[in-house]
C-alpha cells in the first residue's frame, strides 16, 4: 500500500493526455480570439444550438440508439448461448465470435464496403438471382450495420461475464419451484443480468454516438454525424473553437446519460465488469 509512487507514471500520463486536453477543450469552447486578445464568450455554444447542427446531433443519437437496441437484441441471446455450459463446451462458437475481433477495426469496416458496394458480393448474388440491384452502401442501414458489427462484442462481453458468474443453483431453484424456461428467463436471469446489460448499453452507446470512421466509410462523403462534424472542424475547417464547443456539448450529453445509467446500476448491485 505504501508504494503509491508506482502509480506516478500513470498519474503523469493521465494528466498529459486526459486532464490537459479537457482543459484545452474548455478553454477553446468558451473563448474567442479577437484583435483585443482572448475573451470569454458563449457564441460557440450558441452556434451548436443552431437547427442544422442540432439535427446532426439528434441524428447521431438516434442512430446510436438504434445500434444499441439492435446490439442488445442480438447480443443478449449470444451471451446466453456462450454462457450456457452445454454450448460453450465446444469452443468453436466462442472462437467464431472472437476471431473477427482480432482483425483491425478499419480493415473490418473496409471489408463491409466491398461486401455492400457496387459489384460487391451481395450485388453479385442479387445479379445472379436476376434480382434488381439495391443500394446498400452509403445508407443509414449500412452505417447502423457497421456500428452493430463493430460494437456488438462490447454488448456481449459484459452480459456474458455476468451470466457466466451467475449461481446455477438459483436457476435450478426457480425451476424447482415450478418455473419453465421462459419464466426463469423473465423473473430470474434477466433481472440478475441487468448490471451487465447496463454496462453493455453504455459501452455500445458511447462509441456509437461519437463514431466518425464508420459513418464516413459506410455512409459516404456527404454523410455527417456528430463525430464527422467535430473531425471536420478540427482538420478541414480549422475552427478549433467551434469543434471544441461541439465536443463539449457531446461530452455533457454522454456524462448525463452515464449518470442515469450509474444510478440504475446501483439499484442492482452486481458484478458488471466496470
Amino acid at each position, binding site marked *: 500500500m505504501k508504494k503509491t509512487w508506482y502509480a506516478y507514471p500513470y498519474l503523469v500520463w493521465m494528466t498529459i493526455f486526459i486532464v490537459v486536453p479537457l482543459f484545452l477543450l474548455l478553454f477553446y469552447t468558451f473563448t474567442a480570439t479577437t484583435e483585443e486578445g482572448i475573451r470569454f464568450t458563449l457564441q460557440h455554444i450558441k452556434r451548436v444550438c443552431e437547427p442544422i447542427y442540432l439535427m446532426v446531433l439528434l441524428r447521431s443519437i438516434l442512430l446510436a440508439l438504434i445500434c444499441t437496441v439492435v446490439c442488445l437484441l442480438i447480443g443478449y441471446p449470444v451471451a446466453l448461448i456462450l454462457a450456457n455450459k452445454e454450448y460453450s463446451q465446444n469452443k468453436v462458437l466462442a472462437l467464431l465470435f472472437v476471431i473477427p475481433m482480432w482483425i483491425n477495426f478499419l480493415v473490418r469496416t473496409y471489408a463491409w464496403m466491398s461486401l455492400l458496394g457496387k459489384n460487391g458480393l451481395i450485388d453479385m448474388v442479387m445479379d445472379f438471382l436476376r434480382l434488381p440491384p439495391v443500394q446498400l452502401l452509403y445508407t443509414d442501414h449500412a452505417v447502423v450495420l457497421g456500428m452493430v458489427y463493430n460494437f456488438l462484442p462490447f454488448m456481449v462481453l459484459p452480459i456474458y461475464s455476468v451470466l457466466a458468474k451467475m*449461481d446455477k*443453483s*438459483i436457476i*435450478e*431453484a*426457480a*425451476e*424447482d*419451484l*415450478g*418455473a*419453465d424456461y421462459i*419464466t426463469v428467463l423473465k*423473473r*430470474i436471469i434477466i*433481472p*440478475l443480468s441487468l448490471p451487465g446489460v447496463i454496462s453493455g448499453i453504455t459501452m455500445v452507446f458511447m462509441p456509437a454516438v461519437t463514431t466518425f470512421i464508420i459513418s464516413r466509410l459506410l455512409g459516404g462523403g456527404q454523410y455527417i454525424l456528430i463525430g464527422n462534424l467535430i473531425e471536420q472542424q478540427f482538420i478541414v475547417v480549422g475552427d478549433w473553437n467551434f469543434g471544441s464547443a461541439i465536443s463539449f456539448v457531446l461530452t455533457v450529453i454522454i456524462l448525463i446519460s452515464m449518470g442515469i445509467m450509474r444510478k440504475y446500476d446501483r439499484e*442492482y448491485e452486481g458484478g458488471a465488469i466496470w
Partner: protein
Amino acid sequence: MVEEPIIRLVNVSKNYDGTEALKDINLCIRKNEFLTLLGPSGCGKTTTLRIIAGFERPDSGAVFFEGKDITNLPPYKRKVNTVFQRYALFPHMNVAENIAFGLKIKKLDKKTIERKVAEVLELVNLKGFEKRSVDSLSGGQQQRVAIARALVNEPEVLLLDEPLGALDLKLRKSMQIELKRIQKMLGITFVYVTHDQEEALTMSDTIVVMKDGTIQQIGTPEMIYNEPKNAFVADFIGESNIIPGRMLKDNLVYFAGHEFECVDSGFERNEEVDVVIRPEDIKLVPVGEGMLQGEVESVTFKGVHYEMIVRSEGINWMIHSTLMEPVGSRIGLRILPHDIHIMKKAAVK
C-alpha cells in the same frame, strides 16, 4: 409390499465423463418417512437427489413417483421441492418475494399468497421478516427462508441437499430438531442428503448408506448402527475397530491370536472375514481377566468419555470408556460375544 412407495428408483445409473456416479441404484421411499442418503463425498448421494428433483436424467433406469414414470419429466412439472446446499435464494427479491415465487407461478390470488407466506414464516420462526432483503439475513435465517420457500408449495416430497452443512455446530443441532419437528407436523416425506453420520442417526426413519455410487445398506438408524452389513458401513457409522479374522465354525471366530465366541453363523468354514468391534464395547479389566492384554499408548479426553489407544497383539485398539487408564499401564481387554460383529470381506478393497 402393501403400500405403494411414493418414490421408486429402478436400476438407475449415471455417468459423468466416463466415471460412474451411480451404479444400478434401486430404492423405495415410503410416504411420510424421513429418509437420509448418507455417505462420504463423491458417493452419489447428491446425484441421486438431483435425479429425483429432475435436474439430472439417469443414463439408464427409471424414476417413479406414486407409480407414474417421471424419468423424463422436467423439474418444474414435478411435485417435489428442493432445499439447496447453499440456499440459492433469489438475491433480487426480499424474503416474502422469495417465498411467494412458487405461489405466483401457480397464479394464486394475492390474499392467499400473503396468508400462506405469513403461515410458513411462522412455521420456520421468522415472523415479521417479510420485507427483509435476503442479504441482511444470517446463514441460519437464510436456510429457514430456503426451507419456507420450498414448504410453502406443499410438496409431496421435500428434498434437502446438505442443508445444514454451512451452519455452526450449535445452530446445526437446533435446526436438526426443528426440521424433524416440521417434518412430523406437516407429515411430508423428507429425502435428506448428508455426510454427517450423527445427523443421519438423529433425524432419520430410514438411512441409506452409499459408497462409490452403490447402496451399501438400507435400514433404520438402530439397524445400521447395531448391525452394519459390512466394514465400510461400520466404519462410516460411528467409529469401529476393524480387524481381519477367520471364521472357524459357526459361533467361533479367530482373530488377534485368539479364538472368540460370537453370535454369527452362516459363514463357510475358515472363511476370511472382517471383525468389527465398537470402541465402547471393549471393556477394560485388570490384567489376566480379559482374553487380551495390552499397553495404553495414548489417552484423549473427548468430553463424555476418554478415547484410548491400546496396543495388543500387534493391533491398535480404539477404546471408549468413562474411566481413564494412564498411558503406559498394562490392562486387560474383554469383549463379549454379542459385541463381536462378523462381516463378509468386501470384494474389492
